[in-house]
């Protein structure tokens, strides 16, 4: 049940980010100045935290999506759905452990 709630919430959150992301990318067609001005806001520390949350949401949605697909198509899937949920969480923690230090380093750097 919680995997379903999280899948739904992350799906909606990613969807709304995608709407904004297509619009900000459309500024590439306006001018370098307009695009850079908006993309520079993504480099603020507060947005860096937002990006980390977005990546966390996508990672969970993608891993749990694989789990849903395996439950639907793999004969042994339904029986192992609970085990697979724990696996989703473990792999998610590993991916985030790889990404977070990198992202924090970038946020704090003077690039």
């Amino acid at each position, binding site marked *: 049940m919680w995997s379903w709630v999280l899948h*739904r919430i992350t*799906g*909606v959150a*990613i*969807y709304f980010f*995608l*709407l904004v992301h*297509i*619009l900000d*990318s*459309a500024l*590439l*067609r306006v*001018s*370098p*100045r307009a*695009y*850079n001005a908006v*993309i*520079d806001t*993504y*480099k603020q520390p507060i947005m*860096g935290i937002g*990006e980390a949350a977005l*990546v966390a949401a*996508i990672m969970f949605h*993608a891993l749990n*999506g*694989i789990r*849903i*697909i395996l439950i*639907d*198509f793999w004969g042994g899937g339904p029986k192992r759905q609970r085990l697979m949920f724990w696996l989703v969480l473990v792999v998610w923690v590993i991916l985030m452990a790889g*990404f977070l230090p*990198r*992202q924090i*380093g*970038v946020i704090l*750097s003077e*690039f």
Partner: protein
Amino acid sequence: MTTETVEAPRSARVSRRSTNWEKWAWLYMRGSGVLLIVLIFGHLFTNLIADEGGVKAVDFAFVAGKWASPFWQIWDTLMLWLALIHGSNGMRTIVNDYVSNSTLRRIMLVALLASSIVLIVLGTLVIYTFDPCPSGALQSQLPSFCPAQ
């Protein structure tokens, strides 16, 4: 002992020849999901991790450098279409689940469809009409392969 008489079902049998759109939408969610894992993970890796500056390296010149190659143009086009259709079809499911007023539901579904079409057309046009060296821009904001203006 009494005998029960069971009435014949009153609803007509569903025609087998009509397309089962819900089934195709269900399959699409799973097929696009598998492809999106590759596309989105690759996208996040090249744009947030591979470059030394991470997200701070992303600007007009960075994107112009990527889109100089048809590889990334096609990559981004596939990602745009697959993700937006996957996302809006998922939102359609959620609207159907929670919006019980049929007029409101209809308005929301039409808005979802309309916004998705507009954004897919807009995004595709941006990728294929992109000009990496627009005139009147600061040289410092352009990719290094642009001729001096």
